């Protein structure tokens, strides 16, 4: 079997007394799309922030292409440049135009020249169909457009895997479609993705595996067919209907 791109091994995380993650493990293979879902407070977002060490876990291990991020002296900036992240609230850099939001990573982190970075940014914006708004500032864009730029920003780094933290849950209903379409497009291009979402239609269409989390543990996992045919745990069934 091929070596997985990302391995999450027995990750534990607590904030003071509150244990948020209690031993979560899974692995993601090249080109795979994993959907993580579950009720709010179940630790999904924390899990994503643990994976790229924005909130380092207390115990366990994270491996990117076999290399540990938890090892002492690991170059976290380098690892993070290979792990894209798309945020619920977009978090675009407010003082930069759309194209500069996308170009700044290649320019400052990957060491591209200004022209190379612009070129890379432009083709990333093409992927998300935002070239016509390239010279707008984030505050001049709709939520859906901002999130597409956010996806382009992650794509421009050509990462090994992209983490999506509820990318559509801060959007007005009529804007969700355009973002999901972009996510479908990049999934079809073979992008490795870990997606925390309540969008069951998206999960059904592209995910290779769905992971249901509750209270900091993986309750159930399986293919979309498995979940939609009738999940075993009552909790997952209920979540699927609500979601």
């Amino acid at each position, binding site marked *: 079997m091929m070596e997985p791109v990302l391995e999450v091994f027995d990750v534990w995380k607590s904030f003071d007394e509150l244990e948020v993650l209690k031993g979560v493990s899974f692995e993601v293979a090249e080109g795979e799309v994993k959907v993580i879902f579950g009720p709010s407070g179940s630790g999904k977002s924390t899990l994503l*922030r643990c994976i*790229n060490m*924005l909130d380092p876990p207390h115990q366990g291990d994270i491996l990117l292409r076999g290399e540990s991020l938890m090892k002492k002296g690991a170059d976290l*900036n*380098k*690892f*993070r*440049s*290979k*792990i*894209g*992240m798309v*945020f619920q*609230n977009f*978090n*675009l*850099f*407010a*003082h930069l135009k759309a194209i500069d939001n996308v170009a*700044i*990573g290649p320019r*400052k*982190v990957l060491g591209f020249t200004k022209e190379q970075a612009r070129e890379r940014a432009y083709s990333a914006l093409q992927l998300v169909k935002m070239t016509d708004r390239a010279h*707008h*500032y*984030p*505050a*001049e864009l709709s939520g859906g457009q901002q999130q597409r730029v956010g996806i382009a*920003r*992650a794509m421009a*780094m050509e990462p090994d895997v992209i983490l999506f933290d509820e990318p559509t849950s801060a959007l007005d209903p009529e804007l969700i479609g355009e973002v999901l379409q972009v996510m479908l497009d990049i999934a079809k291009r073979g992008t490795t993705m870990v997606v925390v979402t309540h969008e069951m239609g998206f999960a059904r269409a592209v995910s290779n595996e769905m992971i249901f989390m509750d209270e900091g543990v993986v309750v159930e996992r399986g293919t979309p067919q498995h979940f939609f045919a009738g999940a075993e745990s009552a909790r997952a069934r209920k979540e699927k209907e609500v979601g």
Partner: protein
Amino acid sequence: MTSSKTQSSSFLQTLRKKFRTRVGKAFLAIVSVFVMIGILMGLFVYYGLERFFDEFLDGVSTTLSLYIFALIFGFLVGLFFAIARVYGGAILSRVATAYIEVIRGTPVVTQIIILAYLPDTLNIFLSAQGLPTIPLSWELRYLMSAVCLGMNSSAYQAEFFRGSITSVSTGQMMAAQAIGMSRSQSIRQIILPQSLRRVIPAWANEASYLPKVTTAAYIVGVTEAFHWANATVSYTFRTLEVYALVAFFFIILITFVTWLLDTVYDEVKIPGL
């Protein structure tokens, strides 16, 4: 009749439109500063104090240089301590907090007396040890006063900067680090460009307060604007007029600074925000 009226009003409109552009606004502002300086000089003649004008210029230029030095010194040191306080970790942030609290908690008069006379204080110690003493001079006194005013301003500026740095959301820092930027890159590329824009209106407060704080240098004998006022009053006994002239100088300076910072703020504002 009617046609000439419409013509003149449309002429006024074009004139008004012209002055709404950047260059027009700047032109108007500079003209108003010159008009105010003209009024100030007119007042000198009106009060019959022309013969003190050269010394007045010496005094206000000393005040101006103290102000500009303290503002820039305070900006650099204040920004450093603000960053230290927010991102400095346990030790550095406590050091920064202590610096800020000591300066904000003590009168500027005390600070300037301690610092301006620091060479004299050291000399007592040095001569007691039989060591060579620091040569005292007017320049040294002036320099120590300027540094003291800069340090004083830095504490207040640091707090303005800290406020604007923490108001830039943590999401911005997360997003910067998530694409692989180091902490210092994130601060330089993402946090500071936003917080330095955002701080301008609050910072304008300090920039317009500081000129008046520089008058504390008068206490340690720096020949700034109030030194001139006091000396001139002792010759002429024209207390009200002389102090009114100095006050008028401060109004011109602060009006100009406020206008300048408002303009800079408009120019660098992030579109859409």
